Structures are given as structure tokens and as C-alpha cells.
């Protein structure tokens, strides 16, 4: 076997499961340690650099980091990463003094269409570098879907105002109530580059007989939520059916419960497990007495002279073919009728660019999505870039932000006349954490606490007031304990084969049996069979080191390592060391050099 290439930035980055899974590669364990140390402002700024919206994301992030978190593999549940982020935002105090100042105007002006998270990320990154950024949005307030779709009981307006404010203070100009009706006209205004962050603003229609006859009480989910958010819709009928199984459906049903809906139910084509909504969204809906009825295909809307009465559903079951593909076949039972005063349709979201003229140079594919270079996000018209939901269809806030960073790098290169496809390289730094024989500069004791639950406000309070936030957030003490569950996966085990005497001390002490010294193997598959403990998770690397005196190789299954540092503590020769991994992720302006990281002087280096 070849030794693992630990100089490749990806190798150790992958070990930090959460950071690797985060589209913006937020250095999760680093900010979790800061939260444990009570350094909330620092933790906030580490987030702010990577993902711009710690307060928003600490409440509503889709959190791809959590299913990836190693803790979920060695214990029952992952670290509550997302909710810890909110703790940083809730307790940070004043961070303005830590915020960087923009560079002097560099003569270039950029337009962003849409004031959602993608555009706001582009705007921040470029404004700091001295660009003048103008953001257009058809709505009265900035924030995009974060403002108009996500209900206030999950994300209060003040949080959005504050975090959008940290961007506008850099001189970004946001023109609200300014819907762009023509790309051609915008191109003609002479911006140096244009970023399209207009989202996926169209809700999918319900195709069922009776839909249009009863139109007065049938609403498209995202339009209805926007109308609720802006205070135009203040009530709903007592009996409400929400169609669809995604997060939009969950927001619709929970909003309906707060606007007068007493008998609110979600009716979904698929089974409960396959629903697109995140597990916690489903749980929260069920807690608010909303039944989720699965395996029901909408058949026809029942109405009396245009007045909605209810809806009929065909009952189906899932059948899988030998390739594992699912089809829904009718069970033959009679259709099921559900009475309703209102129906909310939340069965999907689509892209739509009615304002981009077909002949202005921007090509779209068969699905109506722009043709883009996936790395640079540049469209077929070189000065136009896309990101967020507008680029590849509906995703989430953190993806929008990640696109924003990449688009900003592209736009900067484009405006400076550089090759957009030449991406700045990722850098890494490894710093030893050793302070003494049994002393590390990180807290290497492994907590055995199970995941702490975030306290919720009383149900009858939140159901009466659509503005009342449901989740109350961790208090500091709970946050500390939850933070201690983090395994510090960025403190990497680094092995120096030349120093090893194969005394087996590391193998003996390792609590999860992830180390093995063995004879060489032909392939990784062979090697996996020779280890001290089963290593079945093929997504996780085997760390292989050759160059031992005996001709054996050292193999570490990265899958279950607790980063407890015991191997390094028991190693007599220092062949193992615990070293923090710092990913140097390029941004237009290197914020690490700027003020926002200035407060880090001791402890684990930022």
C-alpha cells in the first residue's frame, strides 16, 4: 500500500466531518471550542467569516454537518452544531468593533439581482475588497426567501435585520421594491459584472380537477407564506389541508395552526420516511397536533358551486422493482375524502426567469436552468454569474452562501482581467497542540453526555402568536455541556513512521480500536479485513503509513477516532502527535488577516 497523502488538503479536511460537509466549510470544532470557553464573539466572527449569517443559520440552517458528525457514529446523536451556532449569536455582545472595514472604492460596480443570501454573500465579499455593489430586489425588505418564506416563529425579523445590517454597513446599496424586468436593460446600465441571485420563486401548481373552480380557497404555498410574512394574510379557515411533504409544507401547516386553523393536516403522496422535510421539522409539526397522512395521492377537489368542500385522495402503497426504484400503486381501497375550508399546495418549487430575454446571450438548459461552469458559476455571458437557488434549483441558505463566495471570487478575477477558471488553491496548516506529557491545548477529555434538547416555548403561547419564537435556544450552561460533546475532529492524529518503535502502546490504549500495525496488503479492500476492529464505512479513509522499521504498516481507520489524544499520550517517541488542522479557504479578502480574527491570542490558534 501507498502511504496516505496527508499533504493533500482534502485528506485531513475530510476527517473534520462537519466542516467538510458544510458547503461553506465553516470551521465548526473551532467555534464550538470558543463557545465552550465563553468566547461567544470570537465564535460569532469565525462563523461570520465563513457563512455570514450565524444568527439566521443558528436557527434555520439545513445543517448538512449534523448527519455527517462523527459523534453520531460513535454514540447515538450528533453534536447540536446548529444550535450551538445560535448560542454564539445570542451571547456575542457587540461585534461591530471586530468587523472589518471595506477597502477604498476600486472603481468597479457590480449589480446583484435579488437580495437573498446568495447575493448578500457576493455583496459582502466584494464590498470588503472595494467594489461598489448594488442589490436589486422586488420586495420591500432585504433577505430574499429568508425574509419572506421562513416563518417568524422560526426566525424573528430582528435577527435578519441585524445580519443584513452588517453587510449594508460596508456600503452595499440595497434597492428594495425594484423588480428587474429586463436583463437586457440591466446589461445596458454598464455594471462591470452582474450576479443573478433571484432564487427559485415559483411554486408548483396542483393539477387536479376542481382546482380552478375552487381557486379562492386554494393557495400556492410559497405565495401564501410570503403573504403571511408581510402581514397581508392574517387568517385561514378552521379546516386546512396542506399538500406536500417538504419543509415548505411544514412551514405552511404550522403557520396555518397559528392563523386560526384548528383541524390542520398534512397529506403526502409518499411514505413518512421518504418525505423531504427534515426530521426535526416533521417532529415540530406533529408536536403542534398536525397529523401527517402518508400514501395519499390527490385526486380531485370537491366543491359546491366553486365553494371548496374538500378533497379526494387515492390510497396507494410503495412497490419497489429489482433496481430499488419506487412506484406508488393504488391499493384498491375506496378513495378517501378529507373536508377542508382551505387547501395549501406545497408540492415543489421551480426556477423561472421571465425577465431574462432569451436572446441576450445567457443560455438555459432543458430544465430552464442557466448553463454554468459549476466551479466559477459563470454563465454563457461572461459578465453574468449565477448563484443560490437560481443556479441549480432550490437548495438552502448555506448553499446560497457558499455559491456567493465562489461567485465573488469569480467576479473579482473577471473584473481584474484574470482567468476566472484558475481557482485559488486551498491551503492547510497543522499546529501541534502538545503542551506537556499529558497536556494538550484542547480539552481532550471525551464527554459521555447524550445530546441536549433545546428548550421550547409553551405550546399554547406559540400557537396564539405567529411571531413568538418556538425555540428558546440553549442557555450558557447547556451550551457548555453540549459543546463538550464535540470530539475536536480538527485536532488531527499525525503519525511519523520514522519515530515509531511498534511498542503497541497506541493500539492498546485506543478506546475505539481504530489502530492496527499489520503486514502490507495488496489493496485497501484487503487491508480492511486485517484490522483490529471492523472498518466497514467505506466513505471514511484508512490512514496508511509505510516506512516502519519492521516493514509493517500502520493503519488507522478514521471512521471512529475520538481525537482523544490517548495514542499520542501513550507514545514514548512522539510518533503520534495531535495537530490542529486549519483550512485556509480563499475568499476575495482574507478575513483571517483582518481585524475579525484579531482577538485570538491564546488557546487554540484560529
Amino acid at each position, binding site marked *: 500500500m501507498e502511504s496516505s497523502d496527508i499533504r493533500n488538503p482534502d485528506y485531513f479536511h475530510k476527517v473534520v466531518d462537519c466542516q467538510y460537509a458544510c458547503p461553506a466549510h465553516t470551521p465548526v470544532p473551532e467555534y464550538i471550542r470558543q463557545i465552550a470557553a465563553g468566547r461567544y464573539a470570537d465564535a460569532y466572527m469565525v462563523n461570520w467569516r465563513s457563512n455570514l449569517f450565524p444568527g439566521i443559520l443558528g436557527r434555520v440552517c439545513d445543517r448538512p454537518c449534523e448527519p455527517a458528525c462523527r459523534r453520531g457514529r460513535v454514540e447515538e446523536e450528533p453534536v447540536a452544531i446548529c444550535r450551538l451556532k445560535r448560542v454564539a449569536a445570542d451571547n456575542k455582545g457587540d461585534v461591530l468593533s471586530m468587523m472589518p472595514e471595506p477597502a477604498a472604492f476600486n472603481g468597479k460596480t457590480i449589480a446583484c439581482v435579488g437580495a437573498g443570501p446568495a447575493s448578500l454573500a457576493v455583496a459582502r465579499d466584494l464590498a470588503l475588497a472595494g467594489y461598489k455593489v448594488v442589490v436589486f430586489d422586488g420586495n420591500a425588505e432585504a433577505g430574499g426567501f429568508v425574509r419572506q418564506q421562513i416563518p417568524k416563529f422560526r426566525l424573528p425579523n430582528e435577527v435578519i435585520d441585524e445580519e443584513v445590517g452588517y453587510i449594508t454597513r460596508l456600503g452595499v446599496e440595497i434597492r428594495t421594491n425594484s423588480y428587474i424586468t429586463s436583463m437586457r436593460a440591466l446589461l445596458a446600465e454598464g455594471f462591470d459584472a452582474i450576479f443573478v441571485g433571484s432564487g427559485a420563486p415559483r411554486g408548483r401548481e396542483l393539477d387536479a380537477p376542481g382546482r380552478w373552480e375552487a381557486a379562492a380557497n386554494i393557495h400556492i404555498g410559497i405565495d401564501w407564506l410570503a403573504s403571511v410574512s408581510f402581514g397581508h394574510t392574517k387568517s385561514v379557515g378552521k379546516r386546512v389541508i396542506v399538500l406536500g411533504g417538504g419543509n415548505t409544507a411544514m412551514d405552511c401547516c404550522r403557520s396555518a395552526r397559528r392563523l386560526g386553523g384548528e383541524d390542520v393536516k398534512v397529506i403526502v403522496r409518499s411514505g413518512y420516511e421518504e418525505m423531504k422535510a427534515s426530521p426535526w421539522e416533521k417532529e415540530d409539526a406533529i408536536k403542534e397536533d398536525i397529523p401527517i397522512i402518508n400514501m395519499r395521492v390527490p385526486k380531485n377537489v370537491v366543491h359546491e358551486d366553486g365553494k371548496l368542500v374538500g378533497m379526494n385522495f387515492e390510497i396507494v402503497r410503495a412497490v419497489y422493482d429489482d433496481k430499488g426504484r419506487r412506484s406508488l400503486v393504488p391499493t384498491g381501497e375506496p378513495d378517501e375524502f378529507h373536508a377542508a375550508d382551505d387547501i395549501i399546495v406545497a408540492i415543489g418549487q421551480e426556477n423561472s426567469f421571465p425577465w431574462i430575454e432569451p436572446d441576450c446571450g445567457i443560455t438555459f438548459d432543458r430544465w430552464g436552468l442557466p448553463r454554468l461552469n459549476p466551479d466559477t458559476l459563470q454563465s454563457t455571458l461572461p459578465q453574468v454569474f449565477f448563484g443560490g437557488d437560481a443556479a441549480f434549483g432550490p437548495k438552502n441558505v448555506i448553499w446560497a452562501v457558499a455559491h456567493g463566495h465562489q461567485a465573488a471570487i469569480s467576479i473579482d478575477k473577471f473584473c481584474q482581467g484574470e482567468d476566472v477558471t484558475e481557482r485559488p488553491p486551498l491551503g492547510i496548516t497543522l499546529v501541534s497542540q502538545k503542551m506537556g506529557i499529558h497536556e494538550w491545548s484542547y480539552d481532550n477529555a471525551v464527554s459521555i453526555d447524550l445530546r441536549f434538547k433545546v428548550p421550547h416555548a409553551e405550546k399554547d403561547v406559540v400557537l396564539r402568536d405567529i411571531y413568538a419564537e418556538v425555540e428558546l435556544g440553549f442557555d450558557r450552561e447547556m451550551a457548555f455541556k453540549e459543546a463538550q460533546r464535540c470530539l475536536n475532529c480538527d485536532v488531527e492524529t499525525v503519525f511519523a513512521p520514522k519515530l515509531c518503535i511498534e511498542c503497541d502502546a497506541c493500539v492498546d490504549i485506543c478506546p475505539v480500536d481504530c489502530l492496527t500495525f499489520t503486514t502490507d496488503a495488496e489493496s485497501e479492500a484487503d487491508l480492511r479485513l486485517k484490522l483490529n476492529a471492523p472498518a466497514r464505512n467505506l466513505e471514511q479513509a484508512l490512514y496508511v503509513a509505510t516506512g516502519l522499521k519492521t516493514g509493517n504498516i500502520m493503519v488507522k481507520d478514521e471512521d471512529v477516532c475520538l481525537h*482523544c489524544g490517548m495514542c499520542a499520550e501513550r507514545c514514548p517517541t512522539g510518533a503520534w502527535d495531535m495537530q490542529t488542522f486549519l483550512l485556509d479557504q480563499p475568499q476575495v479578502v482574507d478575513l483571517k488577516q483582518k481585524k475579525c480574527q484579531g482577538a485570538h491570542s491564546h488557546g487554540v490558534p484560529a
Partner: protein
Amino acid sequence: MTYLPKPKLHHPELPKNDLGYTRRDYEGSISTLCAGCGHDSISAAIIHACYELALPPHRIAKLSGIGCSSKTPTYFLGASHGFNSVHGRMPSVLTGAAAANRDLIYLGVSGDGDSASIGLGQFAHAMRRGVNMTYIVENNGVYGLTKGQFSATADRGAKNKKGATNQDAPIDMISMAMLLGASFVGRSFSGDKTQLVPLIKAALAHKGPAFIDVISPCVTFNNHEGSTKSYDYVREHNEAVNFLDVILGRQEITVDYSPGSVEVVRQHDGSLIKLRKINSEYDVNDKIAAMEYVQKHQSKGEIVTGLLYVDSDSQDMHDHLGTSSTPLNAMDDAALVPGSAALAKLNASLR
């Protein structure tokens, strides 16, 4: 200096033995020995062996003397009985315990100083009395705990850390054990668990005195150039005669090696030792030949390892003495103190 306990979290697929225990359940407190000490590997091997044999931890008694090696029982079998004796006196204490309660499994752990220097006499008599026990000497050629003086097992010509040469003849505990009546004798290396773990298992299953000499480098005082008990030296000079698998009663044996290369030894408890022979000539049942073989190879500077001798028909101290099969603590007062009439009767019978 803080010694954090070993984290409780374990591999998600950590298996359980027949008693429902995981290997982790056989651990003890965190070791305070020097990092890299061979003794820690032996502790790990003992843990593996007891787990694999599914021994009930509360039926094991671990006894030791004084020394780094003798400290190790704290670091394994946290749920077993333990006794830390005076320096070199473990064999006597163990003999007494075994006499009183024959139902426990006795594990004596000692060092080369503890057993070959101050405790040599104790060691000799426990062997010749045939105490039913597993006796492990963690042999590093020095007094580790008192900072590295040569012990009685140090080879003539070996150099200490400062460069001084040992002039005295070494005590070979393997040959002594065979000579003195140990019915199971083996040697191994702390850095080779594939050989050591089954050897300990076989010894634990053996009835009678089972002695294992485990070369166990002292990283701090005896792991330098010129030492004959260093990791490098032992790896270079290790001459294994066999490796073994211990097969518990219920399991079938399938001999999957070429003829002559495998030998099966049946022990008292019904367990089988499957020997994979490296040296096909070597006969583990022939004590005289074994002693000769060990001496011959030793004189060539080789360290012979493996199961060196086993007497599968061995007897133990209780057999020799014809003692009661009931341990003393299970007898009632009347049986323990039969009274003056019984004494008078006994005396009369001897007149």
C-alpha cells in the same frame, strides 16, 4: 500531570462474549507506567485473553509483588480480586490464597526483580508445590521502578543506559521453571500479541503451575543500543517455535495446515491447544528435549518463544495434599472448627 481515564465510548461494533461482557469490561484504571512500557502491552494481552475465555471477572484473583510490573494488576481486570504483596512475596501469598479457596482463578504477575532477585526462593517453591496458577514474569532485565539497575535476568555482557556492562550470569527463569516442576512453560514478547494472547489463554486454562516469561522492554531504562531486552533486539533475535490457538470445549477443530505442522494438545478443562509449529521437530511434551533446545538456542543468542513445555496430565497442590474440594469459605463453622473431641480423636489415631 493529569491522567485522564480512557474514554468510555467504544467501537460501535465492539463484540460481547458469552457472559455479555465486552473486552472493555475487563479493563482496569488508566496506566501510570511510562508511555511505551512493554508491561502495558502485557496488561492488554491479559485483558484480551480473559475476555476471549469469557472468564467471570469476580472469579479471578490477581496477585503481585513490587515493581512497575507488579503495579500492572491495577490496570486490568478492575472487577477482580487483587493483592499487592511485599516485594518478592507474591508466590507465598498466592499459595496461601489458593490453599484456602481453590475455586478462584489465580493470576500472579511479577517482575524479573521481584521473582528472580528478592523473590527467587518464593518463586521456586510455588513452582515445585504445583500451585494451580498462571504466573507471568514481565521480564525487562532491570529494576524499572528503582530506575534501571540490572536485574538477575540481565544477560552477561548487556549494557545499561549509561554504558556499564553486566558481568554476572543471568538467571534463566524458563529453565528453572521446567526444572522445578512447572507443568506449563512458555515465553513470549510483549510486542507480539498474536503469540502472547493465546499463550495466556492456554495457561489460564491449564491445571497446575503455568509459567510465562514475557520479555517486556523497559522503554525508559533498557531500550537502548547494547541492551538485550530492547524492542529492536528482541525482534531481531526472536526464534518462535510455535504459535497457538486455544479452542474452547464446544468448538470444532478443523486442521487446516499441512501434516506435521499442527499438533493438538488437550488440557484438563477440555480446552484444546492447537499448535501451529514453526519448528516441526519441536515436541512440547518432552521436557528434557525442551530444556536442551532452549539452552542450545540461548547459547547462540537466540530468544526461544512459544509454548515450550506442557504436561497435559498435570496435577496440582490440592491433588498432592488431598485437600477438601470445598473452599474454606464455603464450609460452615462446624466443619472448620470440629472441636476438641475431633482433635483428640485425630491425635489418638497418630499415637
